[in-house]
Every structure is written in structure tokens, then in C-alpha cells.
């Protein structure tokens, strides 16, 4: 909170205050003052949704399984069991073509997929906030540059560029994260830019400038915090997309050979679709559940932030 926003008076709450002199600033002060109230309402609305209570725990469970699970399951690398066993009480997810316990492989695979997904999202958020914020706040050159970069990635799809880059530069986890981050940040940046532009147009940014606050300071402490809600929604969706793209890449063979993610498991499963359907089913199912949960949570966040009253007219 900065010194620019007044505290709402009790009269304002009751609608009983004297009408202020006609001034565009009135509306923006009211917006700034009630921002906290609206965020609370959005938060409560979010928590009330059934979908949140189903899928938020689901994500938590999947994350736990991936990171705590390894202590409980067997070794994903030791090929000591009979090959291609279907799921049973001994091997919950069966065994693969080399005789490795599949449950262990899937659990360890989750680590890679989830780490990549969340790292990419964080990278996109950072880049997006900086560049999108500058573009929306200052306009001009940064804005044009951002638009051009977005166009670039529309014309050369991220997946294709990622494949080319990974094929040429190598494919360990870090490189994959960087490549995906580079191809996906414009999406987040666009949202940041739109929000920054909208907020900048509101009166209180100008009054902050008049009060002597410097541009970067205003950007950091006023514009960006108020822009966060839709940006968080976009970042959440980015997690899902990143996981999908990473799984596509590793399915095609671009991935860390020593730490196979779910997509890489699917790559191996391809040859055994005939005999061992479980090899294809489970890793994909995990990808699906994680991405579904993330997307539904993102949707719920979006709904909570943009309530619509009365749908059809």
C-alpha cells in the first residue's frame, strides 16, 4: 500500500457522503480505495467453488507423490523384475520392457515434469513482469518490441523452435527450461502489459508522479501489485502448457536421458502399445491430471476475479 490511497470513510461505505465535485479522479480514488475489498471478495468467491476443493488437493497430492513418493517406492532403474507385467498388487503399475517397476518410474518421472513446469512458469512470470510492465507503463519502444516478439513466436511455433534449439544445443533439464521459458514468456508479458496500461490510465498513477515518486518506484509498488490477479491466472495456465510442451518434447526424444519425465516414458511405451497398454496409460494419465487440475484452478481464479451477474439476456 502506498501513501496515495485514502482510507475509505464510513460515509463512503453507506453511500451517504456528500457528492464530490465532478472530477474523473473520484472514480479512480474509489477504485484504488476499494481494491482491497474487491480482492477479499474475489478470494472468498474462489474458496467457495467446489472445483477448487477438488483440484487444489489433487495438485498437492500429486506434488507430494512426486517428491515424497520416492522414499516409499522402489528403485526406478534396477531392472530386476519380470518384463512387461500388467498391473497387480505387487506392481501397482506393472513393469516395463526392461523389467523395471513402473510405479517407481512414474513417480520419479513426475519430479522432472513438475520441476520443469513450475520453473518455466516462474521464468515466464519474471520475464513477463519486467518486460510487460515496462511495455505497458512506458509504452513506446518497449511496447513495440513486445508486440514484435509475440508475433515472432506466433509465426514460428514454440514447439518447433524448441525442437530445433534442443536438437542443436543439447537437451538437459536446464536447457529445456530455458528454451521453454524463452518461447512462452510473451504470453504472460502480454497480460502484464494490458494490465499495466489499464492501471497507468487510472488517475492515481499521475497523482503519484505529481507527488514526486519516480517512474520505476510507481511501477514496482503500485502498478504491478494491482496487476497481479490476471497475471497469476496466466501464470497458472502457463504451468499446464509448459508441462504439455515438455512432455511433447521428451516424447520425441528430446529430454534428459538419465531423468526421464512422463513424456519420455511415453516415448518408450510407444513400441509396446500392442502388448503393454499400461505403459502408455499411466504416465499420460498423470500428465492429464496435473494439467487438468492446473487449468481448472486457473479458470476458477479467473471466474473469481471477473464475476458475471446474469448470463444470458
Amino acid at each position: 500500500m502506498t501513501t496515495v490511497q485514502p482510507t475509505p470513510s464510513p460515509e463512503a461505505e453507506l453511500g451517504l457522503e456528500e457528492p464530490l465535485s465532478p472530477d474523473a479522479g473520484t472514480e479512480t480514488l474509489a477504485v484504488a480505495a476499494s481494491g482491497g475489498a474487491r480482492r477479499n471478495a474475489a478470494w472468498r468467491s474462489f474458496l467457495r467453488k467446489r472445483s477448487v476443493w477438488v483440484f487444489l488437493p489433487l495438485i498437492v497430492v500429486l506434488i507430494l507423490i512426486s517428491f515424497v513418493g520416492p522414499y516409499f517406492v522402489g528403485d526406478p532403474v534396477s531392472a530386476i523384475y519380470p518384463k512387461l507385467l500388467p498391473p497387480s498388487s505387487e506392481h501397482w503399475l506393472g513393469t516395463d520392457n526392461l523389467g523395471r517397476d513402473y510405479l517407481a518410474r512414474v513417480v520419479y518421472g513426475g519430479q522432472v515434469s513438475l520441476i520443469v513446469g513450475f520453473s518455466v512458469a516462474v521464468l515466464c512470470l519474471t520475464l513477463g513482469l519486467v518486460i510487460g510492465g515496462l511495455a505497458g507503463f512506458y509504452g513506446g519502444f518497449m511496447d513495440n518490441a513486445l508486440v514484435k516478439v509475440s508475433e515472432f513466436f506466433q509465426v514460428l511455433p514454440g514447439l518447433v523452435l524448441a525442437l530445433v534449439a534442443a536438437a542443436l544445443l543439447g537437451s538437459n533439464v536446464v536447457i529445456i527450461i530455458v528454451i521453454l521459458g524463452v518461447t512462452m514468456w510473451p504470453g504472460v508479458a502480454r497480460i502484464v502489459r494490458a494490465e499495466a496500461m489499464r492501471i497507468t490510465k487510472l488517475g492515481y498513477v499521475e497523482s503519484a508522479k505529481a507527488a514526486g515518486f519516480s517512474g520505476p518506484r510507481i511501477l514496482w509498488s503500485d502498478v504491478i501489485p494491482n496487476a497481479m490477479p490476471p497475471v497469476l491466472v496466466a501464470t497458472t495456465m502457463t504451468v499446464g502448457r509448459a508441462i504439455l510442451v515438455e512432455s511433447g518434447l521428451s516424447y520425441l526424444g528430446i529430454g534428459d536421458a538419465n531423468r526421464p519425465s512422463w513424456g519420455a516414458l511415453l516415448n518408450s511405451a510407444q513400441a509396446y502399445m500392442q502388448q503393454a497398454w499400461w505403459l502408455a496409460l499411466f504416465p499420460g494419465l498423470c500428465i492429464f491430471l496435473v494439467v487438468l487440475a492446473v487449468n481448472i484452478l486457473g479458470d476458477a481464479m479467473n471466474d473469481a476475479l471477473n464475476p458475471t451477474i446474469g448470463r444470458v439476456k
Partner: protein
Amino acid sequence: MKAMAIHYGRLLLSSLILFVVVLTVLFLLLEIAPGDPIQNFVGDVPISPAFEAQIVAAFGLDRPLWERYLVYLGNVFRGELGYSFGTNEPVLELILNRAGNTLAIAVPAFVISTTLGIVLGAIAARTRKRWLDGGISAGAVALFSVPNFWLGMLLIIVFSIQLGWLPTQGKAPYGQDGIDIRYMVLPVITMASTELAFKTRIMRSSMIESLGQDFIDTARSKGLPSQRVLWRHALPNALLPMVTVAGYSLGFILAGSVLVESVFGWPGMGLLFVDAIQRQDNQVVLGVAIFLTITILLANILTDITYGIVDPRLRAQFTRKAVVK
């Protein structure tokens, strides 16, 4: 007319610039790739030192960076996309042979995902039955969250392996030329799936927004039956943003062909691309990327033209005079 010429002139120019930027990025990637540049050029085909010297001379690999860049640009613009040492064919020919196969499944996927997406989205937006809207929306999110290549694998497992209704791989029975329709079914469905989900969601929100517009009130105030309000007022306005969406989706579908063709062994550009990556046949890799970029650029221009025709506000801007006072 002049406004139109200026607009499209600018569009072509920026497309051209974008194209050159893409070429430059690809070139730079090739440059900074680790490993022996000659081998990078040739792929993982073993070569003799004599042959190596020939290659260097013929393709100017010992010249400075700037010269190589310009030679490369010049080649691309002349349609010379290089040579695949692995298969002994010019890259462009290779791509053109396969492009038809990719389009054979990409175009139906595009048509199906667009029409079905529009229909489902409109139904979801309009219906009073909450279960119908909820079902379509939930289905869309689910389809959106599925990795489409995994969906392909599941479809193969269920329909080809377990049920035996449809073939598993390839585009036609072994040895047969051309494309057999039965082989197209699963790949087309797989290719269309993600885009279908996306378009359904967008159409639904576009329709809801259109139905919330003020001119719907005016239409209702005329006592028009709700069907007419829907078809004549809400739907046309909701379709406008869909033109742009459909245009962009072509790019996504083509990019997705990389994955889908791998699942089904479908001999199109995508599979060519993946094979080339694994063989390190970099000329082919770049060639496909370039070809894809050109296709998408053309699709974007086409979308822009279509939108200009379809939206009366833009039509007037280009063909008529100023506003009548």
C-alpha cells in the same frame, strides 16, 4: 482504396521482415550449436576428408560469418533449402513430397475443429440447461488438458488394438500408394482435439459476450422471437473474433503435426522433421522450420484479408468515403 493498399503493403512488409528475423534466428542457432560444424552441416553421415573438403568448398563453409549469412539468405529466397545428405535429396523436394500428406490430415482437422467448436460453443453459451453448458465446458477443459499425442496413443490402443476397427499406423496398407481414408480417421481426430477444445471455449465466451451486448436489448425490444435474436444478431457478432482465432489455429495444427505424425507413423512433414532431428540432418530440420514459417505467414495474411471482408466496419474503412454528417 488507398487505405487498403497502405494496409496490405504494411502487412506484407512486416511479414517479410518477420520472415527474415526467423531465418536469422535459425541461422544463429546453427552457428552456436556445439560440435563440428561440418558434421552439423552434413548430419551423422560418415564422410571422408576428401568429401569434407569438397563440401567446404561447395558450400563456402570456410568463409566468414557475414558472408555465410548472406549466402544462406540468398539461398532461401531462391528456394534453395539445402541438401539432405542422409537421403540424397534436395530438401525442398523432400518437403514438398511430404507436405501433401500433412495437409491431408491438417485440413480436415482444421475444418472439423472450427465447425464443431463453433457449434458446441454456441450451444454452451445459449442453453438454459446448466448441465449442458457445464458438460460442454468441462469437456473442453479436459480435452484442452490432454496431451494430444497421448490421446492418439489411447485411441490406437482402444480402436486399433483392442477393437480392431481401424488401422494402427501409416497412411495406407503396406505397398499401396496414396491415402486410405480409414487410416486418416484417428490421426485427424487426434490433430483436431486440442484445437476443438480451444475453439469451443473461445466461441462460448465470445457468444456470451455478444449476448450481453446492448444491441441485443434493442433486438429484444422489437419483440423478435429469441431464435431470431440468436441467429441474426448474437451469432454473427460472436463469429467475428473466431475468424482470427481460426487463422491462428492453423499454425498450431501444423506445429502439432510433429507429434501426431510421430504417433501414427504418418509420413508427413512432421515425421520428416522428427526423423531429421534424430539423424541430425540439420539442413532438413531448418528447411521444415522455414517451410512451416512461410505457410503460417501466408495463413496470417489470408486471415487478415478474410477479416477485412467480413467485418463491415473494416470494409467501410477501405472502400467507402468518410462518415456522413
